[in-house]
């Protein structure tokens, strides 16, 4: 359903994937670095096109626009490649496009060894990310996620920092276990619904007419919650995240922490909540407790104790996922909508933080916060952007994160005032470690270690290659921060006609 000759959603997947195939077949390096701009820019343009045209586009079932179906030979099994966007997937599709572009640009200016293979893997990952959020078919939703996940392991293993082999192995095992559990949950929905298709629209219609038994819903939701939970680093299944992000090369960390990790939350919002509303009601208090105490408080204090900049960003991303889970647990439309906003905002800000941390590393030659200090005079632009990223991640008004966190707190207040208090105190924790890190890196006197490094390699400000991707991310954060309706209108529309069982169940329970 598009007026363009080619389906932009398919194009967003096919451009990076096709380029990756060309690289694998031996495209010369000179062409690779030129075409890579197209490979990373294409999906971003497609995403912006979709965002620009979404409001006006004709909507089909359940608020989906741009629906197109491509057969893959599995029609008899109920699987076909079906692409489309609704108000929930559009923000994440745009997020994937923007962060992908930033990560790609940052990779292109980096001095990674074996650049061709590095770009190839990033492009495959980018294709997988675009596909994940554009898929309406549950099978392909999972399929594209895995397509993006595998390159992460390889990139950590080859281009990672210290402990890369151990980190790659840990990530692989944790995330495979999580992915397998979620797959089981998705199969369970398909089998138990009695539908003959993996198509989300069909599943929703089938289940709206004939919901699954309450007990079964609870079981399936539990499997999905913990399966997706591992992928989103729900406490206590989070320990792969700081380790993996600490070791991952910056572009991989940006794409994974920024976008891919949102897969699990997105799956819960887009699939589990509407299809298994009774299951969600059964689990919400337990989930809220795990996320509130575990992710926000425990990990918040753990983050405070970090002495390594990248580890700190890694832990802080685990902590912020706690807010998203809390919003989800609050269970009302308001909270769920805020979770989607937070996903986008957090994706942009954590990608920005990973990018800037690596840029800091290139100037200080260490991630150790104790051995830095006084970088601001030498690199004012870096300092400004880093400060902006920190403000965003704390949730200051004017940045997108504000519109994610505040509605979550409000929604949470109606759900459980105690947890709301925990969540709000979490912001204080994140303000403390965020601002302290800024102070350690950029202000105060130079530490003896950094003085030596600075004497040998005088630190310079951000180069254009670093500036452009960072500015893309900052611009998006501020744009959404100032005009949240650009995304929230679609989110509201997607959540407003909550399926009858969900509304009824919620009304009955409260």
């Amino acid at each position, binding site marked *: 359903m598009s007026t363009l000759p080619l389906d932009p959603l398919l194009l967003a997947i096919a451009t990076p994937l096709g380029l990756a195939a060309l690289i694998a077949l031996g495209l010369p390096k000179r062409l690779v670095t030129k075409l890579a701009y197209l490979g990373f820019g294409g999906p971003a343009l497609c995403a912006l096109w979709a965002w620009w045209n979404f409001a006006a586009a004709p909507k089909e079932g359940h608020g989906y626009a741009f629906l197109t179906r491509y057969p*893959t030979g599995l029609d008899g099994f109920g699987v076909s490649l079906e692409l489309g966007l609704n108000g929930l997937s559009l923000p994440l599709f745009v997020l994937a496009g923007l962060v992908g572009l930033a990560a790609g640009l940052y990779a292109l200016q980096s001095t990674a060894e074996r650049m061709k293979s590095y770009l190839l893997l990033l492009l495959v990952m980018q294709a997988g990310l675009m596909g994940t959020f554009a898929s309406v078919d549950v099978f392909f939703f999972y399929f594209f996620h895995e*397509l993006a996940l595998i390159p992460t392991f*390889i990139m950590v293993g080859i281009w990672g920092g210290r402990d890369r082999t151990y980190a790659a192995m840990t990530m692989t095992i944790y995330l*495979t276990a999580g992915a*397998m*559990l979620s797959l089981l949950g998705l*199969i369970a929905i398909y089998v138990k619904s009695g539908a003959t298709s993996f198509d989300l629209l069909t599943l929703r219609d089938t289940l709206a007419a004939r919901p699954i038994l309450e007990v079964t819903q609870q079981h399936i939701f539990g499997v999905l919650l913990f399966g997706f939970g591992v992928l989103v680093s729900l406490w206590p299944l989070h320990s792969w995240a700081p380790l993996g992000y600490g070791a991952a090369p910056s572009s991989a960390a940006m794409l994974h922490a920024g976008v891919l990790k949102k897969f699990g939350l997105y799956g819960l919002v887009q699939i589990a909540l509407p299809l298994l509303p009774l299951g969600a009601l059964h689990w919400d208090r337990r989930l809220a407790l795990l996320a509130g105490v575990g992710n926000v408080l425990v990990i918040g204090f753990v983050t405070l104790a970090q002495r390594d900049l990248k580890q700190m960003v890694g832990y802080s991303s685990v902590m912020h996922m706690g807010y998203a889970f809390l919003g989800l647990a609050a269970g009302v439309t308001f909270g769920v909508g805020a979770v989607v906003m937070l996903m986008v905002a957090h994706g942009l800000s954590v990608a920005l933080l990973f990018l800037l941390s690596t840029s800091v590393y290139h100037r200080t030659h260490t991630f150790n916060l104790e051995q830095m200090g006084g970088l601001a005079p030498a690199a004012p632009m870096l300092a400004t952007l880093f400060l902006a990223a920190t403000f965003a991640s704390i949730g200051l008004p004017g940045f997108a994160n504000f519109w994610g966190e505040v509605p979550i707190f409000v929604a949470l207040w109606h759900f459980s005032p105690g947890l709301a208090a925990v969540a709000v105190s979490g912001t204080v924790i994140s303000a403390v470690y965020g601002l302290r890190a800024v102070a350690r890196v950029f202000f105060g006197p130079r530490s003896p270690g950094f003085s030596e490094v600075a004497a040998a390699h005088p630190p310079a400000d951000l180069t254009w290659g670093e500036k452009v991707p960072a500015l893309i991310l900052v611009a998006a954060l501020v744009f959404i921060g100032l005009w949240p309706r650009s995304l929230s209108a679609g989110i509201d529309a997607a959540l407003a006609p909550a399926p009858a069982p969900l509304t009824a169940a919620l009304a009955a329970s409260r």
Partner: protein
Amino acid sequence: MDFNLLRESAASNTWGALWPELGLGSLALLLLLLEAVLPPRAHRHLGAVSILGQLLLLAGLALGGSRPAPHQAFNGLIGFTEHTGLFRVFFILSSLLATILAQVALARQKLPRTEFHHIVLVVSAAALLLVESRNFILLFVTLETMTIGLYILVSYFRSNPRTLEAGLKYLIMGSLSSALLLFGTVLLYGAAGNPALDGHTAQPMQFGELNRFLAANPDGFLCAAGIVLVLSGLAFKIGGFPFQIWIPDVYEGAPTPVTALLAVTSKAAGFIVLVELVRVFEPFHWLVEPVLTAMAVATVLFGNLAALKQHNVKRLIGLSGVSHAGFLLLGVASLETVPQAAGAVYFYLFVYLIASYAVFGVMTVLAGVDDTRQDLADYGGLAKESPFLAGILACGLGSLAGIPPLAGFMGKLFVFVAAFKAGHYGLLLAAVVGVVISIYYYFGWIRMAYFSDEAAAAPGGPTRAVAAAGPTLKFTLALLAAASIVLGFYQSGLGRLVAGL
């Protein structure tokens, strides 16, 4: 001249329905004949003759694929289903690939080659007849033909003591399994032929007749014992727990192409027969399903746990093959509730063939003169020395591990869905645990090839061996890797196997 007689015999000409099997047999005989008449220096081209002949058979199958086959032949000894054409392609493909690998492996040995190619063809023809047999006599005869061929092939590199040891072990364990199978058959024969029992039949060896008899006596102890013994005999072939015990030693000792043949042809034949027999034993599903379920759980867990700590890649792939047998058993155990599970099992076998031969191909190239010593350490730094081989290896292992977008994932997905529909939740949980464990050793292998900086330790390491991989093998391996990737995205005709699941 009695034309009527000729016309009748032409109409009932069931030999024609067996043309691929006859073709394989004739090709095997042709090789021996050519060896006798051609001068010795021409003998090394006989492998190419075998490859060409098999390609012709495959082309014939592709062209005549749509022609409807008769339902049965030879008075019910042999039966054809809609999948028969697919099995033929499968087994001929497997022997073709084994022949191509053998070209490389045999070049390193001072041994006669024609006989090797000959026996590979005979084994494949027997495997084809085995999966088409609908009678226990034919089943046993073809099974033995296949297994005896494999006895010879396993110990083909006869100067190597480990290979001889493997041959002896395989012989003893194989005979034991044949004996179990035979004993089970005899019990079933005795029970079904007993005129004192309801529904007794004059032809108890015939699958259809036996099925009718079992339906009339769904609780006979003798039959139950016979069924368990028959299943045990087959469990040896497929490597199901607790009959997987021979696998690591035999896989290690056998020449790599033969290991591949054991892993693919022998295992697949076992599974296809198992699917057929589960249908025959359907009245005893109260017995068959729990037995298969327990076997599946134990096989998945044992295979994966045992593979964790292997250093010899042939043992590793053998034990990982045990775990694959477990995943396949997942599908077989679901068969009685979900008949479409058979399609999932067949699909899995296909992707397993493609992925396994990619890995075995790389193993064959990298093996030294002593084919039995192939260590994980030999793969260190492979990606730097030969990105091509490392890429093939990654595709093959990734597909075996079941990582999307590779075909192996689709295979696992389909059997999982089948098991889910059949309600085997505990089994699924074991399978998921198995998959996660398997990631560790598959990725350990890939990690060795890609992330390890230590140069290959093996004498005559990858550099020299890579040059030895001829263009035929390279082309084949590239095709296999491509097939693993494409089948993950786009299943096309093979997708019909799982329609309705």
